[in-house]
């Protein structure tokens, strides 16, 4: 029964412990971060990190490059802002409105996009997202160029005042952790395994009887919904929803963040988002043009770290020793 032994050996303990320690340290940093940084900066970072992770569920784990995720991010921001401001719903419900709106939008865009592959898939998502952009530009409820301004943050569960920056920060952190936990669960589930197999060899997955389209569509809707979670949260953090978040540049930015951090790793996009947001914040006060600098950083990173920053770390000698070794095709 050598095989049975081998199967048992697969679950080695030490990498698990190392990863738990890393997770604990990361969480402790996030809990203590408001002591050292501006809460708004941190909250922005968390929103984009969640956005990038949700995007990566599609790119890294299903192998689909969407160029239209701004529609879900910015769309959810509008939905949440509208629900909270016009309907007067509590913030937690407002975010759920954003999530459901984004999921619905994801179902429509995904339905058309998954019929195509590769660059055509990307083009269709871009085209449909642009249509949504123009809808937002024209429609009444989005207030056109002005966007929805002075969105109230409200009281969480009717008691906790979210206008208080610390309260808001821990609320955002909680939603972030829940979002990441959901993504982690999806990736490490029977369904996630099928997604990976589709990424690895779509034809073989079809020949094994998987209705690949349905799986892709499900992944697309999940990714859109989680992106909506990030978008709705952002609307509450900044208290407005504008056209910036539905523009194609936003779709590009999330691709940049994900590639920088490393696709196909859970925490890679978090680092990528952190880097981009930090850079933008830093450069905003300097005279350098932000887009050129981020472009250069992106090029340097792609040349130096083909797997993304976290991907390279996982594949380094240290990463392997710590049990992070991980494979992904490029």
């Amino acid at each position, binding site marked *: 029964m*050598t*095989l*049975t032994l*081998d*199967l048992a*050996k*697969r679950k080695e303990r030490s990498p698990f412990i190392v990863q738990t320690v890393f997770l604990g340290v990361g969480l402790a940093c996030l809990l203590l971060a408001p002591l050292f940084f501006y809460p708004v900066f941190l909250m922005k970072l968390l929103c984009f990190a969640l956005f990038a992770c949700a995007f990566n569920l599609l790119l890294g784990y299903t192998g689909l490059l969407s160029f239209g995720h701004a529609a879900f991010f910015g769309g959810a921001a509008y939905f949440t802002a509208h629900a909270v401001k016009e309907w007067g719903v509590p913030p937690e419900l407002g975010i759920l409105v954003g999530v459901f709106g984004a999921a619905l939008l994801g179902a429509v865009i995904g339905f058309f996009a998954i019929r195509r592959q590769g660059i055509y898939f990307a083009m269709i998502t871009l085209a449909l997202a642009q249509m949504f952009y123009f809808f937002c530009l024209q429609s009444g409820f989005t207030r056109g160029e002005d966007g929805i301004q002075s969105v109230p943050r409200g009281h969480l569960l009717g008691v906790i005042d979210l206008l208080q920056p610390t309260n808001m920060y821990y609320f955002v952190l909680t939603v972030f952790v829940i979002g990441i936990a959901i993504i982690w*669960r*999806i990736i*490490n*589930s*029977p*369904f*996630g*395994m*099928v997604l*990976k*197999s589709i990424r*690895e*060899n779509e*034809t*073989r*997955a*079809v*020949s*094994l*009887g*998987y*209705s*690949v389209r349905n799986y892709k569509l*499900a992944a697309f809707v*999940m990714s859109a919904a989680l992106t909506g979670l990030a978008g709705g949260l952002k609307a509450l953090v900044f208290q407005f929803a504008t056209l910036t978040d539905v523009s194609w540049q936003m779709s590009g930015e999330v691709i940049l963040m994900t590639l920088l951090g490393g696709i196909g790793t859970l925490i890679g996009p978090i680092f990528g988002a952190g880097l981009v947001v930090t850079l933008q914040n830093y450069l905003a006060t300097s005279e350098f043009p932000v887009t050129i600098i981020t472009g250069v950083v992106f090029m340097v990173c792609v040349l130096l770290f083909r797997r993304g920053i976290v991907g390279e770390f996982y594949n380094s000698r240290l990463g392997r020793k710590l049990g992070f070794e991980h*494979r*992904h*095709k490029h």
Partner: protein
Amino acid sequence: MAVATPLVNEAPRVVLSARGLRRDFGGFTAVKDVDLDVHHARVHALIGPNGAGKTTVFNLLTKFLQPTHGTITLLGEDITKTAPDKVARMGLVRSFQISAVFPHLTVLDNVRVALQRPNRLATQFWKPLSALDALNGKAEELIRSVGLEKEVNAVAADLSYGRKRVLEIATTLALEPKVLLLDEPMAGMGHEDVGMVAEIIREVARERAVLMVEHNLSVVATLCHHVTVLQRGEILAEGDYATVSEDPRVRTAYMGTEETS
């Protein structure tokens, strides 16, 4: 040459059939007027020179390609317009000429992915991965049956070409198909593996239909009950190996030019 001794437990009946199958690529006709009957509990060989259209016939039968003309019937149902994944779910499963595994998954995970759908463990996005451990027993059995037990935790991409093919056969068998289409299952394998795979196919064909493309004629001779020879997209000859190999047209068209290894 010795002709296969049929291992027949059940009366042969047609499970997969094609009538007037044709496929054009632009102006070029890759498959023309092919009639094919694949029987239960029989190994059926599809042979022919390179470019004869064997893989194209497989692609048509499994619906990865849509035929230009003709009809295909699987287990009494017309599948001419059915999607390939549906065809697979109906029990017609294929392997690929260029080995199709999930390269960055382990051997165990490759087999488990194949087992997931028939065991209704494919859509649960809320369950932990450990839910798939329920498949380990079956996976272990399949892995053992193709002699991959030492490589169970190896990543598929790291396997030798022959081992990848064997893994693909294991994942194909995992679906317990009623009809198996194997495209050159033994290509690139070492001697031992060829013998093992031949034995597996023989065993599997006791209660299933097998249609296989094979260039190794000694394998065809000993394993297959029925041979169809394809040339330039058309059927040149048909029958048991002895009959077909005596056919002068086949000798000139195929035997003379092909390695008999």
